[in-house]
C-alpha cells in the first residue's frame, strides 16, 4: 500500500510538471513552430531557386573556361577508373606527358570509395599539340594483403583535331588484370 502511495504521488508530480511545461505555453510554442515551418518552406523554395540559378552560372562558366583555357584543338583530358571489383588501395597517381610532370594526385578515403563504386575521376585536363605524345603513368598503392605496390607504365597516344580523352583503368597486383590499361576516345 505504501509503495502504491509513493507511485501515485510521483506520478502526480510528473503530471504536474508536464502540465506546467505544457498548457498555454505548449499551444503558443506549437503556434510558433507552425509559423516557423511556414517561413522555412518559403525560404526553402527560394534556396532551391538560387541553387538552380548558380548551377546555370556554373554551366556557363564551365563552357567559357573550356573554350578559353582548353580549346578543343589542343584539349587532352585524362581519366582514372578502377577495374570493377578491384580491392587495391590506391594511394597516388603521377602523370607525365612527354617527360613533363603534369599531375601528382593523392587520394582521400572518400575519393577511393567513389572510384571503387564505379566513379571515374578526371585527373588532368590540359593542352597538347596534334600528333603523338608519350604518357608515363606511375601508380602507388597497397595490394589486397597490405603490401606496398608501385607500377610505372608508358604509353603513346595520338592527339587529333578533336578533344582527346584518355582513360586509365587501374588494377591491383592480385587482380590478374593488366595493372594499367589505356583506353582512347
Amino acid at each position, binding site marked *: 500500500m505504501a509503495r502504491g502511495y*509513493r507511485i501515485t504521488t510521483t506520478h502526480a508530480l510528473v503530471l504536474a*510538471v508536464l502540465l506546467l511545461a505544457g498548457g498555454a505555453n505548449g499551444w503558443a510554442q506549437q503556434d510558433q513552430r507552425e509559423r516557423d515551418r511556414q517561413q*522555412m518552406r518559403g525560404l526553402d523554395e527560394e534556396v532551391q531557386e538560387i*541553387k*538552380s540559378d548558380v548551377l546555370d*552560372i*556554373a554551366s556557363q*562558366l564551365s563552357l567559357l573556361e573550356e573554350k578559353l583555357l582548353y580549346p578543343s584543338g589542343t584539349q587532352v583530358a585524362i581519366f582514372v577508373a578502377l577495374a570493377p571489383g578491384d580491392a587495391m588501395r590506391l594511394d597516388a597517381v603521377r602523370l607525365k606527358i612527354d617527360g613533363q610532370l603534369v599531375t601528382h594526385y593523392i587520394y582521400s578515403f572518400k575519393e577511393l570509395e*567513389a572510384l571503387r563504386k564505379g566513379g*571515374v575521376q578526371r585527373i588532368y585536363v590540359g593542352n597538347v599539340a596534334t600528333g603523338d605524345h608519350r604518357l608515363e603513368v606511375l601508380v602507388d598503392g597497397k595490394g589486397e594483403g597490405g603490401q606496398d605496390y608501385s607500377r610505372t607504365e608508358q604509353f603513346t597516344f595520338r592527339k587529333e583535331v578533336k578533344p582527346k580523352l584518355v582513360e586509365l583503368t587501374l588494377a591491383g597486383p592480385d587482380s590478374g588484370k593488366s595493372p594499367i590499361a589505356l583506353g582512347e576516345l
Partner: protein
Amino acid sequence: MRVPRRLLGLCLALGFGAGPAVCADLRDLYFGEALYHAYQGQYFDAIRRLDTELAQYHGLDEPRLDTLHYHVNQAEFDVGDFELDYRMHRRAGRAIKAVLEGAVDEAVRNEAAFRLARIHFQKDQLDDAQHALARIQGTVPPAIREDVEFLRANIDMATGRPADAVTVLEPLHGDPSLAGFVAYNLGIALLQDGRQPEAIEQLDKAGQMPATDPAGLAIRDKCNLVLGSMLFESGDFERAKRSLDRVRLDGPFSNQALLRAGWAEASAGQYDRALVPWNILASREPTDIAVQEAMLAVPHAYASLDLNGRAALMYGRALELYSHQIERVDASIASVREGRFLDDLIREESRQDEGWVIRLRSLPGAPETYYLMELMASHDFQTALHNYLDLEDLRSRLDAWKTGLDAFDDIIRLRRQNYEPLLPGIDAQFRELDSRMRVRLEQREHLAKRLHAMLTAPRPELLATADEQVAGERLAVIEERLGDSGGPEADALRQRAARLRGVLTWRLETEYDDRLTTAYEHLNELDASVGALDRQYEAFVRTRQAATHSYVGYDARIERLRERVAAALQRVDLLMARQGHMIETVAVNQLEARRERLTAQQVQARYAVADSYDRAARAQSGAEGR
C-alpha cells in the same frame, strides 16, 4: 496518427537512400565523372557535370553516335536523384516529368512515374503522388517492382487507408533490403486499421527479423521500441520489457528503449530491476532528453525501494545536473543570439566527415554547440541547417568565380598584348605564301589534266627530257638552216639530221608508255607533298583562328557572367542572413523549450530531495525510537 507519419518518413529516408546505380559497362567518361562526384556527396558538381553532358547530348544531330547514348535513361534519372539529394525537389520533379513526357519505352516511363511519385510523397503532396503512381501501367522493371508497392502502401497509410496498405504490404517478401521496413509498416498499418492484436504480433515478428546492415538494424530497433511502448501502455509490462530488451544498446533508439524498459520494470513493481537500464542511461550524454529523465527516475526507484538516503543523494545529483544543464542551455541560447552558432557551423575544417556534428559539440569554449545533436533531431532544424550550409557553399563558389572572372580578363588582356602586334606580320607572310601555293597548285592541276589527256591522245614529245628537248630544238635549227640548199655536202648533213630526228622520235615513241607511267608516279609523289602542305596549311589556319579566338569575343560574355555572379552573390548573402536568422530562432525556441523542461525537472528534484531527506530522517528516528 502523427507518430506513424513520422515513422513513415524514417522508413522512406532509410529505404530509398540508395545511391545511383553503377553501370556494368561504363562508356561515357563524363557520366562516370558525375557519378564520381555523387558518390562523394558532391551533388552540385555531379549535377553540373551531368546537366552539361545531357544538354550537349540533346543538342546533337545524331545523339545515337554519342557515348552518353548508352546511359542516357540512367543519366536522366540520376540527375533527378542528385537534385533530390541536393534538396532541389522542384527541379528534380521537372527532370523526371521530362522523362515521363518523352518518347521512352514503357519500363522507363513507369520508373519515371515511380520516381515522381516518390518526390511528391517526400514533399507531402499525397494527391500528386497518387496521381503519379496511377500512371504506372504495363511492364514495371523488376528492380523497382517492390519499391513501387512499398510506396503505394506508404501513400495509403498517409492518406488514412491503412486497410489498403495492409493488402499491398502483405504479399511483399522478395526484396531483402526492404524486408524490415515492409514488416514494420505492416505492423503500423494494422495498428492504424484498429487490428491491435495482429499489429502486436506483426511488430513482434518484425522485431526479431535478421538484419546486418545499419538501416535494417535501426528499423528492427524501432519495431521493438514501438512494440515495447504499445505493450507498456496496454499494461503488458513483462512482454514490453522483452521487446525493449531486444533494442541494441549502441543503436540510435537505445536511450529511449532503456528509459521505457526501466518504466516497464517499475510499473510491474520491480524497482531493483528498473535500476539496471536507468543506471546505464544515467551515465550517458547528459544533454539527451532520456538521460535527463533517467536522472529523476533512478532516485525514484531507490525511494520506492525504501532506500531514502540513497534516493536523496541521487536527487541531489540530479539537481546538480539540471542546474548545470540549465546553465549550459542558457549559455547556448546566449551564444546562439550572439551569432556564434552560425560561425561554428560553417567552419570548413569541422565538416570534413560525417561525424562533424558530434565533434562540434565538444568544441572548447563553444557553448552554442552543446545541444546541437538534440537540435539535429528536429527535421525543421536539419532542413534549415542544410540549406544554410548549401548557401555557404554557393557563396564560396561565387566568390571563387568572381576572382576567376578577373583572372580570365587578365588572360585575355595578355593574349591580346601578345598576339595583336604579331598577327599583322604573320598574316602578310601567310598571304604571300598562300598566293605562291595557289600558283603551284594550279600548275599541278594543269599537269594532271595534260597527263590525263595523253591517256587518250598520246603526245610523246610532251614527255621528252630536257636534253631531248634541247636536242630536238637544235635539230630543228639545223634543219631550218639547211633549208633547200643543194649539193652533196648539204644532202649528207640533211640525212644525218633526219637520222638523228629518227633516233629521237624512236626513243620518244618506244619509251612513251614507261615515261607516262613514271610521270603519273611523280604526280602521285607530288600529291603526297601537296597533302602534307594542305595539312600544314589547315593547321596554320586553325592555329591562326585559335589565336584570334583566344582573346576576341569574350568581353560581353564575361561581363554578363560577372553581373550574374554579383547578383547571385547578393541574393545568397540575403538568403543566408534570413536562413541564419531562422536557424537561430528555431535553435533558441527549442533550447528555451528544453530549458523549461529542465526547470520543471529541477523543481521536481528539489521537492523530491527534501521529501527523501524527510523520509530518511523519519525512518532513522523510527529506528532509534524502536
